[in-house]
């Protein structure tokens, strides 16, 4: 779009990855004179907003300078040797696959910092909170920007410790156990993934993703590919999470603070699916083909399972937690992403990437909204919420806080995949890909998967509508009933949520903006790797 010098682009990408880390270190130091603000707490939270805003601006500049006519090419590439002994190179670059995720990450982290600024997190010092948030941002941004297998692993691991502490220190009930479950599951997955990455790297003689995708390394035998795909796939599937390896997710989401939930759902889960597309598909296609049908099967089981779990939680009297419900819905949505990838077709993978971004936007918004609801009502328990309405008909958000209720309904409807909103295209393309999977994959099996997945969309619609009915509708209580009045959407909340709402609508109405980026890159991926 805008013609930007390649070395400026390179600097921008490096800036995006490194600045949060430096910002994290700076957050631990006392604020310099002139930047002390009203109190040390306020100063450090403002520091978080400043740094994430700078990163977001840099990411937007990167997107603006990105050559949209050739998104299949790696751009803004840096390639410096770091650890020659292990053949680890600091190889950074973005193409049409990683750019949307990079911008999404920068955006969500900025919104989270904004949220924390307005609602200082309770539980620990804001200093540590901001430092951890920024380390988390480095890790997530780096995992989308690096093109070296071992650096990818490093970035993958970098997010573990900050997220652990975010959950364990600032979380709600049951946070200690949830934090442990999160870190142990994902660490086990990622160490197994490391074995697969090492196997690929050692057999191919290179850890460079671009070289592996273009086949510059030594060719891998099918056996090696199968073993590597199994190991790496397990690691990524834990992170995604794929049914039946998802059990850490509901606990982590339920216990995590709002910021943690938003980043967990919006960004961390994407690292898993991104790894499938970036590493496994191009580097070990034959190995992936062996496991693709199983992956697809697990994916559709996840779709149905997640939806059924949500239905069960949404029932009256089930004492379902709204955060837990959204966590299970994530299992279902990520199932669509995995199904798209498992079709091994450009259509399916495009759908998967689209669904990835859409899920980040919509689920991020949902968690923000539920966090706001919890701040106001003190609970996320669906039964407790709906008991607040007259004769327990529903929480009556429409009546008590119309804008909040409207937004919640909007997010729910977007999440169920209403055409015209972001949630629709990704899931439709994934199902469409399953209708006509790659040659070599069993078409009848995929038709069954498609049918089951389509059935899952119905279930998704069902539980989300139940949630809308129980939370947004109902007769509002009279003022004398002792139920507190709710504050409607506040200014800072409006600021934090508007970008997500706008992007959800935009991606729904103008999918080409995103598909135009991913499609050429995906086509190139199947034709022999991003160059």
């Amino acid at each position, binding site marked *: 779009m805008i013609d930007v010098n390649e070395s400026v682009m390179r600097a921008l990408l490096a800036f995006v990855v490194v600045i949060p880390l430096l910002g994290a270190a700076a957050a*631990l130091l006392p604020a310099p004179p002139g930047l002390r603000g009203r109190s040390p707490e306020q100063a450090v939270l403002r520091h978080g907003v400043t740094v994430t805003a700078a990163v977001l601006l840099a990411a937007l500049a990167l997107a603006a300078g990105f050559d949209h006519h050739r998104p299949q090419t790696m751009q803004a590439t840096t390639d410096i040797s*770091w*650890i*020659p*002994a*292990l053949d*680890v190179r600091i190889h950074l670059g973005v193409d049409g696959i990683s750019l949307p995720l990079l911008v999404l990450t920068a955006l969500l982290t900025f919104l989270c910092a904004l949220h924390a600024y307005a609602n200082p997190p309770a539980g*620990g010092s804001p200093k*540590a909170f901001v430092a951890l948030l920024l*380390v988390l941002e480095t*890790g997530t941004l780096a995992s989308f920007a690096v093109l070296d297998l*071992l650096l990818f*692993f*490093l970035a993958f*691991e*970098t997010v*573990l*410790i900050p997220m*652990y*502490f975010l959950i*364990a*220190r600032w979380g709600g009930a049951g946070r200690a156990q949830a934090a*442990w479950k999160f*870190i*142990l599951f994902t*660490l*086990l997955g990622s*160490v*197994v993934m*490391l*074995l697969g990455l*090492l*196997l690929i790297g*050692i057999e191919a003689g290179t850890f460079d993703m671009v070289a592996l995708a273009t086949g510059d390394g030594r060719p891998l035998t099918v056996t090696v590919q199968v*073993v590597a795909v199994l190991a790496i796939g397990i690691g990524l599937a834990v992170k995604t999470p794929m049914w039946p390896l998802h059990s850490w997710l509901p606990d982590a989401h339920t216990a995590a603070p709002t910021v943690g939930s938003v980043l967990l759902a919006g960004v961390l889960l994407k690292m898993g699916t991104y790894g499938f597309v970036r590493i496994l598909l191009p580097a070990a296609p034959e190995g992936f083909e062996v496991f693709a049908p199983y992956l697809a099967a697990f994916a559709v089981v996840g779709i149905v399972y997640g939806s059924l779990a949500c239905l069960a939680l949404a029932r009256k009297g089930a004492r379902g937690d709204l955060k837990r419900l959204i966590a299970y819905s994530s299992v279902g949505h990520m199932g669509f992403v995995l199904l798209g990838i498992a079709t091994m077709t450009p259509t399916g993978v495009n759908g998967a990437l689209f669904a990835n971004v859409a899920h980040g936007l919509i689920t991020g918004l949902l968690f923000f909204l539920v966090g706001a609801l919890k701040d106001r009502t003190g609970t996320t328990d669906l039964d407790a919420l709906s008991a607040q309405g007259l004769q327990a008909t529903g929480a009556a958000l429409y009546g008590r806080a119309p804008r909040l209720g409207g937004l919640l309904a909007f997010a729910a409807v977007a999440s169920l995949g209403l055409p015209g909103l972001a949630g629709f295209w990704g899931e439709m393309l994934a199902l469409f890909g399953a209708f006509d999977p790659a040659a070599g994959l069993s078409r009848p099996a995929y038709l069954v998967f498609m049918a089951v997945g389509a059935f899952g969309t119905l279930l998704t619609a069902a539980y989300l509508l139940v949630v809308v009915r129980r939370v947004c509708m109902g007769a509002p209580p009279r003022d004398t009933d002792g139920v507190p009045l709710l504050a409607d959407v506040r200014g800072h909340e409006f600021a934090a949520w508007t970008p997500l709402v706008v992007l959800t609508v935009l991606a729904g109405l103008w999918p080409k903006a995103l598909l135009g980026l991913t499609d050429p890159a995906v086509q190139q991926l199947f034709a022999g790797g991003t160059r």
Partner: protein
Amino acid sequence: MSAPATAESVVQSVDWLAVAPPTLTAVAALAVLVADLFLPGPRKALLGWISVAALAAGLLALLPLLDGDRSTFCLTTDPGVCSYVADRFTLVVQLVVLGGALLAALLSMTALKDEARRLPAGEYWFLLLGSAAGAALLPASRDLATLIVALEVASLPAFALVGLRHGDRRSSEAALKFFLSSVTATAVSLLGVSFVYAVTGSMHLTVVAEEIQRVDGQFSALARAGVVLTLVGFAFKTAAVPFHFWVPDTYAGAPLPVAAYLSVTGKAVGFTGLILVTVLAFPSYAPVWGPVMAVLAALTMTVGNVGALRQRPGRDRSAVRLLAWSSVGQAGYLLVPVAAAAYGDDAARAIGSTLAYALMYAAVNLGAFTVVALVDRSRPAGRVEDHRGLYASRPVAALLLAFFLLSLAGLPPGIVGLFAKVTVFASAVEAGMGWLAVVMAVNVVIALVYYLRWTALLFRAAPEGAPAARRATAPLTAALVVTGLLAVVLSGAPQLILRFTGVTLF
């Protein structure tokens, strides 16, 4: 041996530069012992400075050796066969050993000051330096006799160090445990050496390596028994399972700096011996010792990590106990590349991974011990629980301890630990030992639990009524600065230690 005994052929020329690192240390040990007799009580602190200076000099003596391999004490009849070789491998291990001893000496200065009544300074420094001299000699030894002698020089003073504290039953009991089990292991090892000598007719590792391939069929069982028995002694020193049981009690009973010393230098002695014996002396017996090493590695890391996991943080001395068990687990990781050397085509590369890991481990583990020593001064019970809220009273020490522990766990921000683990994993994968890699992967997860539990404790709110933190002494601060800098610099540039995977070692 049968050459005519002329003066020329009997008197060897000694390359004093090559033998300088262990010699300096040994001479300093004697000097300290003598000086102790003439120094009045209040001036004993001088001994500590002499010892630290001697160890630093020993480290500096490594510098002139960097230009190339040197060997000395060679056979007059066959100059290619030497008893003392200062090659890259030797230098790296001497760096670990002397550096570890130096940091332990820094910790000791404070410990001796605090416990002046119960720890006799002169003997303490003599024993520490003596043991360090033996440990520095060991990696250079290239014949079985020197190897065993070096091993004993390194261990015998260590027994005394463990039990040196006057009037401490736990300390003496630990020393006795350590002594009895160690001597048994050495005896077994000597038996193995004698078998090997019987079948090969030589003590020199390179000659043994050749001769043992031509062993008469009827002696092959003897040779195999010799190989395995020789390994036992060294496995004991590395505290490989099942020879690990002495570690927790010994560490917990010993003065803290001695535990720190044993956890690094003692371990280095063991795995160096194992590497020399397996890779240099018995390469042709790789099918025998390869599986043994692999099983030892798997058992050691699992038992060590599970043991560490079961430590209750409220128990007395639990901090050192936990580090002791974790050092057993880490020894398991150190053994993985040694086992891989049996299977892969490139033994040197695998051994390089062990060296890189050992360097990382030495810096980080001693750093952790330093912080524990720091906390111990104000809260002598030495419980992990005592570290609760450390961030509030000593933010820098707490952040560094968190960094050290996460490096041991191998998770960012401890990048050096992560890449050290990656090389070890790579050596296992390269050698095709998938099962060992998977066992190690599970162990990494187990280990994270106790490291992270401890790390999380540092940042909790401090309990009510905690005693005020005492000021850190200069030597402790110096040790903390050195280890902290090392860990941070190596995290930025892991290549500094990982390059040993790519160079010729022997």
